[in-house]
């Protein structure tokens, strides 16, 4: 019991610092500058959305923070310590749910917990159930993955990412493949969960409205080479409604800026 309580304890969210990170890829058409001297400070418990057209390196930055890729130069610090490999303090959610079809829902959420020492199987199951309840899927613990809708799959993926109690949640366009209704529901849920579980969240999207709805801050990227162009602070109370008029004001301002940078690039 104690182990479970310890596991569900609120841990302090981490502070992230991206310092002069550059990353190049060699492709068939030559060299792509995915990231060029990118620096970004993220405070503890902040919800930051990275927005930009495809090819602007926002996903690459997320992968580097996750420890899945290494920068060519520069570094990322988590609470002052450089990141060199994946760690349970940073969990990632992908556009495809990346759930494992050979495990049921509970098994998937328990996968990350199995890699945690100091927990026995019963405790793991309890922790997994807690997070499945948090995402509203306590009734589907024994379902097979193929039986779930797209939205439910992403909820399971969210529970799986939350279960090891990370300090940072990295989300790579997690709602892009869902229908509008499901997405709107998830916007509400992710805000509630973020407030309840105190995580630092980095959220990549190309949907400006989504970014304005979720982020404390929206960071705008432009491609070729991938750079940060502008930042927008969203001063709206939570929970926010994606359809609200105030939100529309923010998102049209961001869209305008985005169009500017894209046309600038075309003119070059």
């Amino acid at each position, binding site marked *: 019991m104690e182990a479970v309580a310890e596991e569900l304890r609120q841990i302090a969210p981490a502070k992230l610092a991206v310092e002069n990170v550059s990353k190049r890829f060699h492709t068939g058409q030559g060299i792509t500058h995915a990231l060029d001297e990118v620096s970004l400070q993220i405070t503890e418990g902040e919800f930051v959305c990275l927005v930009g057209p495809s090819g602007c390196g926002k996903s690459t930055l997320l992968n580097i923070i*996750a*420890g*899945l890729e290494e920068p060519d130069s520069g570094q990322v610090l988590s609470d002052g310590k450089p990141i060199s490999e*994946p*760690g*349970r303090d*940073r*969990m*990632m959610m*992908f556009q*495809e749910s*990346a759930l*494992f*079809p*050979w*495990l*049921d829902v509970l098994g998937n959420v328990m*996968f*990350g917990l*199995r*890699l*945690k020492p100091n927990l026995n199987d019963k405790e793991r199951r309890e922790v997994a159930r807690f997070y499945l309840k948090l995402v509203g899927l306590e009734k589907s613990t024994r379902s*097979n*993955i*193929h*039986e779930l809708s797209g939205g439910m799959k992403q909820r399971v993926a969210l529970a*799986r990412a939350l279960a*090891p109690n990370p300090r940072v949640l*990295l989300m790579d366009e997690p709602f892009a493949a869902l229908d509008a209704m499901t997405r709107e529901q998830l916007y509400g849920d992710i805000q509630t969960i973020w407030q309840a579980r105190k995580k630092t969240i980095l959220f990549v999207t190309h949907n400006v409205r989504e970014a304005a709805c979720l982020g404390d801050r929206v960071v705008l990227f432009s491609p070729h080479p991938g750079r940060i162009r502008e930042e927008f602070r969203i001063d709206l109370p939570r929970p926010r409604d994606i359809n609200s008029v105030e939100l529309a004001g923010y998102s049209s301002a961001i869209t305008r800026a985005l169009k500017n940078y894209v046309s600038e690039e075309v003119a070059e």
Partner: protein
Amino acid sequence: MKRLIASAIFFLALLGVWHALVLAKIWSPVLLPDPKLVGGYLLDAAKDGTLLQATLVTMKRLLLGYAIGIVIGLPLGLVTARFKFAEDTIGVLALGLQTLPSVCWVPLALIWFGQTEVAMLFVVIMGTLWSVIIATDNGVRNVPPIYARAARTMGAKPLYTLIRVVFPASLPFIVSGMKQGWAFAWRSLMAAEIYVTILTGFGLGHLLHYGRELNAMDQVIGVMFVIVVIGLLADKILFSPWERFLHRRWGTGKV
């Protein structure tokens, strides 16, 4: 239940046709014995223990060789899928030898090992091994890379990822490869047993062979029947549970 009845009617009808053909006396009873005679042979052989004895000898060879083939083949398949060097060596070898009908191993096995159990085992292993290597290799290559990435972000190290992610993710391929390996092993063992007498054990293939030598058609057909039943049982006992699990989890197999 309905399906069971349909099956029963079909096979009873088949027996009926057979019996009718015998009654029609188109062929000599030496060539086509009555189903009753075949049944009689099976009953006698079951009673005096020859059938059970032969089945045990054959199954022991088959299961042992098959198990060895899988134990060697699975890790080799993982290795060929992961390392270029292994792919260019063992992978190519497996691809080549898989095209060799496994009964072609029999002469070589006899020269190398003589008329011994080892020769039988060798043939069964050769029948299993290459298909298992290729299926495992193929399965690993078809695992979506995102699974391994997801596992890595959750703190899985490479070996853990291989065993707990890559391996189960390849199961649909591996199981079908194991099934193919089983079929190859079973066929080659029968061929080997018919082909040569092994003094240490008298298997089903030998029983079939001596049926021919004695011109005992009831024995030939009876043993063939047993071989078919064993094949069916193996499918139901060894593979059906796996396939049901895969279909349930992956949501496949429903049209």
